[in-house]
């Protein structure tokens, strides 16, 4: 069944009317680009997503690769074709500057276009996304030699890349990384250790894989301050030929979702012949990685939106097509059955998905816009403000679509009824995929701690103050546009609740009760999420008052009202719970469970 993946008219509305892509394109950094180039790239991505990626999704999901003799992992034929197509399309360097062979497209236009590719086949896109991320680490922190040795071929799509962080004993806790790096006479290092859950860590779509690996140089201080970043190729060049670099894929994980992209266990240096190249300065690995991690987290958020969106559109089509039951008031059993979309509860589930998917997309694209502004605005003060706000929004933009998106995917299955619980329809597969997004690149728990313990208090709460000012400005615009109090009051109250909870918890932290403060991070994340997404919906509602497309405008209005009435109104209760200090879980003895 054909699936649009996203609503084109909604995406175009976000870009033009809500997030002002034309204004962004007026910045000097984007002089080479125009709305036309952005629109053409968008069209190309939509086509590739619908015609090449989506048809490959089912076959790729059904045939997850396993480990073959000699550590070989062979990907599905369609993954090879997708890789060729995506490289040719230019996804690897779309948003990279011309200096490294890129096109310098605004992140806003890039993210909106790439969202379709993720929705079409997330495993195929991830291989490219990981490669760009890994190459970027070398671009940012490596020297010319490393750029020539590795980055160039990665950006050209000849080689792929991975992020090799996690070890069996060091998942969320990167300070416990134990992989060793021993200096060698030739200036490189010999790497030894084991990494797990390395996505794209072994495959046959490219001749080489560059693992951006965290390891500890012999004699380095314990903890985070002793971790360095290395580029470790699967094969290294010797006299112009690629030879085995002693990186062995020792197992392939059997995953619930993301089955097209193998996640593997890698053994480095079993024979003592694994060469690694230090990226940047020693002991700076975590700092470097964190810079990339924020971007990776936004990518996970966008992926979560995409997996929820493709399922949402499948649910709309199914609900319009599937006849079942009659109106509650119809008594005559011989009348034809009506499509299930006529039933109020099915419509409720569809509107909830729309509010989550399109609210989440607005948030992720706002983050993309802030990325552009933080890097390219000519005024340093504007760059700084955009950076602080982006920093605050990132953990929310990673967590909200993953947590709420999982619920949206559940609703898509629910609408498909019994069929949705079978593999006959793809909704169960997107639901399996979605679950990973609350786990990888920092679990939801880690994001809560990051939001409350780092981002909220950064620079004396400057990001939060700026955000409050922007929300207040949107509230004023909404009143001027004549939008009803049912849209503005819940958001206004939610914002106050968030500020109040921030003050309460900030005071706890300031008086040394850091544990007491951070125990409330999950509620705090929920409070921030319903408020920020409420802000996204109000901004859309304001923009929609000028929209000539009536269906679009009414859809935005319905979703905005739904969000304010059902979700934004939760904020004061969350703030009250935080203020009450209720944290019985903290005192829990495992024996009571």
């Amino acid at each position, binding site marked *: 069944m054909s699936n649009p993946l996203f609503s084109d008219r909604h995406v175009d509305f976000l870009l033009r009317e809500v997030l002002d892509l034309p204004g962004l394109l007026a910045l000097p950094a984007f002089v080479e680009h*125009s709305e036309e180039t952005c629109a053409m790239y968008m069209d*190309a991505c939509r086509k590739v997503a619908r015609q090449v990626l989506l048809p490959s999704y089912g076959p790729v999901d059904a045939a997850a690769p396993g480990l073959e003799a000699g550590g070989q992992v062979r990907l599905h034929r369609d993954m090879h074709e997708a890789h060729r197509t995506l490289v040719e399309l230019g996804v690897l360097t779309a948003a990279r500057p011309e200096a490294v062979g890129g096109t310098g497209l605004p992140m806003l236009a890039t993210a909106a276009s790439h969202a379709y590719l993720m929705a079409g086949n997330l495993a195929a896109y991830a291989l490219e996304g990981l490669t760009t991320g890994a190459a970027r680490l070398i671009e940012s922190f490596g020297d010319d030699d490393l750029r020539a040795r590795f980055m160039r071929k990665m950006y050209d799509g000849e080689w792929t890349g991975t992020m090799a962080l996690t070890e069996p004993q060091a998942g969320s806790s990167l300070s416990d990384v134990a992989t060793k790096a021993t200096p060698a006479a030739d200036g490189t290092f010999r790497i030894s250790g084991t990494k797990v859950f390395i996505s794209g860590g072994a495959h046959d779509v490219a001749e080489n894989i560059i693992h951006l690996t965290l390891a500890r140089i012999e004699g380095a201080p314990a903890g985070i301050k002793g971790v360095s970043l290395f580029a470790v190729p699967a094969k290294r060049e010797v006299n112009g030929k690629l030879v085995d670099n002693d990186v062995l894929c020792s197992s392939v994980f059997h995953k619930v979702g993301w089955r097209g992209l193998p996640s593997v266990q890698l053994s480095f240096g079993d024979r003592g012949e694994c060469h690694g190249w230090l990226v940047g300065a020693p002991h700076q690995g975590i700092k470097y990685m964190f810079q990339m991690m924020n971007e990776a987290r936004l990518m996970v958020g966008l992926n979560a939106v995409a997996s929820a969106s493709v399922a949402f559109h499948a649910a709309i089509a199914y609900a319009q097509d599937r006849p079942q039951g009659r109106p509650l008031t119809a008594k005559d059993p011989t009348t034809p059955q009506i499509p299930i979309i006529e039933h109020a509860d099915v419509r409720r589930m569809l509107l909830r998905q729309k509010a989550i998917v399109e609210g989440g997309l607005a948030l992720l694209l706002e983050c993309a816009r802030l990325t552009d502004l933080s890097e390219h605005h000519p005024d340093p003060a504007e760059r700084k403000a955009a950076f602080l706000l982006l920093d605050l929004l990132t953990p929310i933009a990673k967590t909200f679509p993953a947590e709420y998106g999982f619920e949206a995917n559940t609703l898509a299955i629910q609408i498909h009824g019994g069929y949705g619980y079978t593999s006959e329809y793809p909704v169960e597969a997107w639901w399996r995929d979605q679950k990973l997004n609350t786990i990888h690149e920092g679990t939801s728990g880690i994001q809560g701690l990051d939001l409350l313990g780092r981002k909220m208090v950064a620079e004396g709460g400057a990001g939060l103050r700026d955000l409050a000012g922007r929300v207040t400005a949107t509230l004023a615009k909404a009143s001027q546009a004549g939008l009803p109090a049912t849209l503005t009051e819940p958001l206004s109250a939610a914002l106050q609740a968030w500020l109040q909870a921030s003050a309460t918890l900030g005071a706890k932290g300031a008086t040394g009760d850091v544990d007491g403060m951070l125990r409330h991070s999950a509620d705090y994340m929920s409070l921030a999420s319903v408020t920020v997404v409420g802000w996204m919906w109000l901004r859309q509602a304001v923009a929609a008052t000028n929209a*000539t497309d009536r269906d679009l405008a009414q859809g935005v209005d319905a979703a905005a009202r739904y969000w304010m009435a059902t979700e934004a109104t939760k904020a004061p209760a969350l703030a009250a719970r935080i203020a009450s200090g209720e944290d019985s879980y903290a005192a829990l003895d495992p024996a009571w469970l």
Partner: protein
Amino acid sequence: MKILVTVKRVTDYERKVKIKPDGSGFETEGMNFVPNPFDEIAVEEALRLTKEHGGDVVVVSIGPNDATQQIRQALAMGAQRGILVQAGELDSDAVARVLQKLVEKENPDLVLMGKQATDDDANQAGQLLAGYLGWPQATFASKTEGLESAEEKAQKPGVKVADGWASVAREADGGIETIKVQLPAVITTDLRLNHPRFASLPGIMKAKKKPIEEIPVASLGVDITPKVRVLKYEEPPARLAGVKVADVDELVNKLKNEAKVI
């Protein structure tokens, strides 16, 4: 060899077209426009042929100024330059007459066109153009039987050019027939001929610098008086719900007396 390819700006088939309440046309607000998919196949075939034989691909569109976007898309696929004839809505005959003028000016070895446009499905312009030029035509160029993938089709193309002749596998009733036409000729393309490439981002950036010549239709001195008048647009009737019949007799009865097809 020089190939002229036509690209029409049409409504996006992914979006629902809404007819204006008075039936005078369709709503353009919020509508997305794309290159006619049949024309993209013509562009792909032209690029394949010039890659094999050398030469240039010139893309022509007739339409509003916004149609430069569809020309740009063909340039992003790899065509060398574009021509926009600025005009309002023309019927197929006027289109053929305008193209005749351009062909006389450009002197191509081959004109490649989509067999029809997905908006009006007229399927006339190519045949009329060949008639006006007095050139041979091969319509509905397609693939050789049994070829499915892009690679297979590239190895055994439906259109082959050699020694001033083109051999064209074309869709005919009951199968594929292969005919030979002497160049210059007009060839129109059907859906199965090839898999058009996507406009890549590097291609899009290159296309920005490729020239597009703009020609007001009035300057061509062509009679574009419509021969076809549009009276009204209306939606096709909604499909009625199906019915279950009890037995064969009832089915035959309904086919005979209600549907009146037997």
